[in-house]
């Protein structure tokens, strides 16, 4: 009879499953405690309630014992060789029963209160963590995301926070209750009969020795099974995703062989780990039954001697359950604490990542910017080993157009990253209207730029929301005007909901249409400087024309930096930056660069031959 929490039954086997270990168990718990500071009084109250509830529960069997003894008085006994039975004192029994009912009710209320507090607090802590992660994302430098995958961050936000919440909800109070139950029932047992208490402890110890041995052996199969599951899921994902290729290359047979191999291995580790974890329940039952038998027999012997009353046996039958149950729960909640620490560690790791410098003290110097940009001997490298830009200088007049060209992977976005202060230069300065951009807060720099990227970014919301985005005081007329200028207005009008159409994964916008929407968004922003990333492919000719003319309109009167793929842009740019393998290797205008007959000339000519 292992009551326990049924909720944890189906998921990871309560026993034997490999528990993710935190690298720093203590440190993480310290951080977690500090993080939950406001909830500590609540948690303390819950723990006290849990212990009190457990203590009351333990007192129960003792009263049940008294009641049994009252009943036994009604049993026939040999008095002078004649069976004789005294009457049962119903007054006494009713008294005990009333006390017991009170006891049970108070214990129930205490338990309920405690569970309620913990359920509330764990949900609140999870909420706080999720909010924290969401805010942290926007405080981290972009550099952080070069080495961390989005999936990893999302997994911290959902899986890890969930684990922290769930385990907190289950572990701390269980721990308090189990310890109280364990110690309490031990005291009560010794108090009632030390011989029986010894019997109970001895049998339980034997039982748990058995369990420890099984647990130790099952661990291996568990991690094998986890690995096997990971392998097979990975393989299925890979082959299904590449189905067209597997099919076209007749690779079906080979992949089936590989699959069956993994599958057979998984069967082996699968049934073994299932079997091993399945052993726990019968073993627990056996420990219970074994103790039960021992208590009955030894108790009977003692009762026949007259050393104890029969009521003690009745009490012990319940005590043995109170005594064995918390032991397994103790083991469980210790594992839970480990899992809390492991998941919590990943959350705190994210919280502890270095943030961008706080710039709230810097004055917002940039306003009414004309659009004069100067690169002054800037050098930059992503990893401080390989310099990407070395001593680059250039002066760009207001309203000029700068094209950045080069093969894929040449590092064209580096310039964008530096201009927007997504990254800071190592040495040298970038000046806008003569003001170094490091001297003003990042937001002030961002305000000066409109940005249209190749990977169009739209979010779930109406078309209007997507165009206005976070800008305030934009009228409907301005939105429509921007869309008319980009040429997307007729399309939006043709939608049944018009500007209120909600964009989600079901709406089918072409790449070009999405691009037009982001251009409209940049138009509304109306910034003096502009960053444009032209699309390369996947846009049909008609939309491509629209996008071109929309982009041309957008660049009018603005200093613009264009990651260029189109000849028209490149040719009439005031300055072309040619990049290769992360370096700016040539600069100049179209004619100058062709005259150099270098990389640019080769790149340019290779397009048509």
């Amino acid at each position, binding site marked *: 009879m292992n009551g326990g929490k049924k909720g944890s039954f189906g998921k990871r086997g309560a026993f034997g499953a490999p528990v993710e270990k935190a690298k720093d168990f203590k440190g993480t718990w310290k951080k977690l405690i500090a993080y939950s500071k406001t909830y500590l009084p609540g948690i303390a109250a819950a723990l006290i309630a849990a212990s009190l509830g457990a203590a009351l529960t333990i007192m129960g069997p003792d009263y049940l014992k008294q009641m049994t003894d009252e009943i036994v008085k009604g049993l026939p006994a040999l008095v002078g060789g004649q069976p004789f039975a005294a009457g049962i004192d119903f007054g006494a029994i009713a008294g005990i029963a009333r006390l017991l009912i009170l006891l049970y009710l108070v214990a129930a209320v205490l338990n309920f209160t405690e569970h309620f507090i913990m359920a509330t607090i764990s949900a609140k802590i999870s909420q706080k963590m999720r909010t924290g992660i969401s805010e942290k994302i926007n405080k981290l430098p972009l550099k952080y995301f070069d080495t961390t995958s989005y999936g990893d961050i999302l997994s911290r936000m959902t899986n890890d926070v969930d684990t922290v919440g769930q385990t907190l909800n289950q572990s701390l109070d269980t721990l308090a209750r189990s310890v109280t139950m364990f110690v309490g029932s031990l005291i009560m047992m010794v108090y009632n009969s030390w011989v029986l208490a010894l019997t109970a402890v001895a049998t339980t110890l034997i039982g748990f020795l058995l369990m420890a041995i099984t647990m130790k052996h099952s661990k291996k199969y568990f991690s094998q099974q986890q690995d096997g*599951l990971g392998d097979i899921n990975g393989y299925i994902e890979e082959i299904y995703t590449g189905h067209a290729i597997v099919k076209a290359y007749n690779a079906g047979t080979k992949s089936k062989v590989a699959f069956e191999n993994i599958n057979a291995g998984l069967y082996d580790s699968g049934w073994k780990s299932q079997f091993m974890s399945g052993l726990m329940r019968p073993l627990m039952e*056996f420990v219970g039954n074994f103790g039960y038998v021992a208590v009955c027999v030894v108790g009977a012997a003692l009762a026949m001697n007259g050393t104890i009353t029969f009521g003690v046996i009745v009490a012990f039958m319940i005590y043995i359950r109170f005594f064995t149950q918390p032991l397994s729960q103790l083991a469980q909640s210790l594992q839970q604490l480990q899992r809390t620490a492991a998941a919590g560690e990943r959350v705190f790791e994210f919280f502890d990542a270095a943030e961008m410098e706080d710039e709230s003290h810097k004055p917002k110097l940039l306003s009414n910017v004309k659009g004069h940009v100067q690169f002054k001997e800037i050098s930059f490298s992503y990893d401080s080993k390989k310099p990407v830009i070395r001593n680059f200088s250039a002066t760009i007049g207001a309203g000029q157009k700068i094209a950045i060209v080069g093969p894929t992977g040449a590092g064209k976005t580096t310039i964008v990253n530096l201009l927007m202060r997504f990254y800071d230069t190592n040495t040298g300065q970038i000046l806008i209207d003569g003001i170094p951009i490091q001297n003003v807060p990042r937001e002030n720099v961002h305000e000066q730029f409109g940005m249209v990227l190749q990977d169009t970014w739209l979010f779930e919301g109406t078309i209007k929301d997507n165009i206005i985005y*976070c800008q305030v005081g934009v009228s409907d007329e301005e939105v429509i005007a921007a869309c008319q200028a980009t040429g997307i207005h007729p399309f939006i009008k043709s939608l049944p909901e018009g500007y209120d159409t909600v964009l989600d994964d079901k709406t089918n916008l072409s790449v070009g249409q999405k691009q037009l929407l982001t251009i409209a968004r940049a138009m509304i922003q109306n910034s003096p400087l502009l960053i444009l990333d032209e699309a390369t492919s996947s846009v*049909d000719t008609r939309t491509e024309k629209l996008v071109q003319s929309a982009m041309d309109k957008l660049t009018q009167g603005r200093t613009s930096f264009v990651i260029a793929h189109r000849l028209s842009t490149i040719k009439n740019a005031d300055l072309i930056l040619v990049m290769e393998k992360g370096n700016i290797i040539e600069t100049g205008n179209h004619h100058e660069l062709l005259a150099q007959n270098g990389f640019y000339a080769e790149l340019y000519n290779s397009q048509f031959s």
Partner: protein
Amino acid sequence: MIKILKYLTLREWLMSFISLGFIVAQVWLDLRLPDYMSEITRLTQTPGSAMRDVWINGGFMLLCALSSVVASVIVGYFASRIGAGFSQRLRSLLFNKVESFSMEEISRFSTSSLITRSTNDVTHVQMFITLALQIAIKSPIMAVWAITKIAGKGMEWSMVTTVAVLAIILLVSVLLVFVMPKFKMMQALTDNITRVTRENLLGLRVVRAYNAEGYQEEKTLAANDELTQTQLYTNRALVVLMPFMQTLMSGMSLAIYWIGAYLIDAADLTGRLEIFSNMVVFSQYSVMVIMSFMMLIFIFVLMPRASVAASRIHEILDTEPMITDGGVTESLDGHDGEICFKSVSFKYPKGSEAVLHQIDFEVKKGETVAFIGSTGSGKSTLVQLILRFFDTSSGQVFVGGVNVKDYKLSSLLAKIGYVPQQAVLFKGNIRDNICFGDTGRGYVPVETAAQTALADEFIERLEYGYDSPLSQGGTNVSGGQKQRLSIARAIARQPEILIFDDSFSALDYKTDRLVRHNLRTAAKEATVIIVAQRIGTIMDADQIIVLDEGRIVGTGTHLELLASCSVYQEIAKSQLSEEELR
């Protein structure tokens, strides 16, 4: 749920029946324990009984407990073997089935859904079966048997037990009604907060450029609030369960003893002892009855999820692929490498409008044919008909003079080297990725294939060269490198026909040109089909076919089309300047 059981083998059924026997034995043994207890009770309360009898009864009790644990270990052994074996078979059946699917079935189910069905759903079913074999069978037997054992022993006690069972059922049903819908919502709410956060992460640069951090955080906050409220609701509702159960069990024991006192008092002297020992035993049995019901409830809670998983698995296993194998293995003599479309129309099974209308063309061996047109013009669909990823709605496709439907699929595909728009690579090393699948004849040396695709340079710079490992999806090489490997893979199988489905747009102009140049010598025997967006890629093809909204609107060489085809002119003008057009 029941339907899926047909995939159990005879041996597994047999194992199930054997374990059923052991379960019955186990229940019998478990229920014997209180009997001995009652005997011991009688002995202690009967004046003058021998200690020896107590020990004997105790010995039997221990034997029962031991036998019971042995029985349940045996049941556990069978259950885990059956569960693991069953899930292995399901996975294997699913994998083979999905492998046999054509693109039509794949797109009907969607890849991600197929993956979930083959992984998570199988795990759910396995877990349920293993659990059901041990608990779902045992609990009702236990409950019924225990009830029959105590039924005759005291009406009043049975009433108390019944009330307790009813109370549990009532509470759990109420909880299920109120909490279950919220539990189902929880997944959607978690997905919601993931979506909002992913949105923020994907648009990191835009968010910062627009100083929209606060705007995004507010969205997350709203999603977070909603999730937390639901979590609080479910967490708090479940809080009732544990204290309630505990109080109920304790209360039941109390009631049995309290009532017992009256029963004993009412009985005559000789009957009193029996009632007393019955009372002690009854309180044990009633706990067993309640526990059995709890276990059953637990199974009922898990059931819907497993049953949904099972029906999702079933759906796949019951689907027959639309594309069936033919028998022809060789092309007609003298027609090697030829492709011919005869008034082909095509409509996606679910789509209402035809994607291709009356397509007619012929390609001779060694020719290069290019398809160009705006997105949605049907270019990719057209080349996929050659690979028989789909079957035509009307008209015929001939490869090597034979209708593609008459080929043995593997023989048809062995003739073709296909490079898709998105390069797909597999976990393994570079060599295995280039010499991929099965050709039935062998491969071009891997170095030669890599050279032709201009992949040799970067491969040789890698630490382990051609044996360098690729991660799943090839995420450890760049996009351009992936595409070059994907091209090398097509070249390596010495195909009669090479199909490039918009594969060159991931390459820069220079690489694009050089690879095509290399192909002219390395694969001069092969018929080449190119789908492209860039005019530069296809200008020198022997034949260019211009598609617009699923129809052929022009056929000819670059210069012919420039003169005659308005759609082609439009495309050309948007990409090239006047001087370059000439």
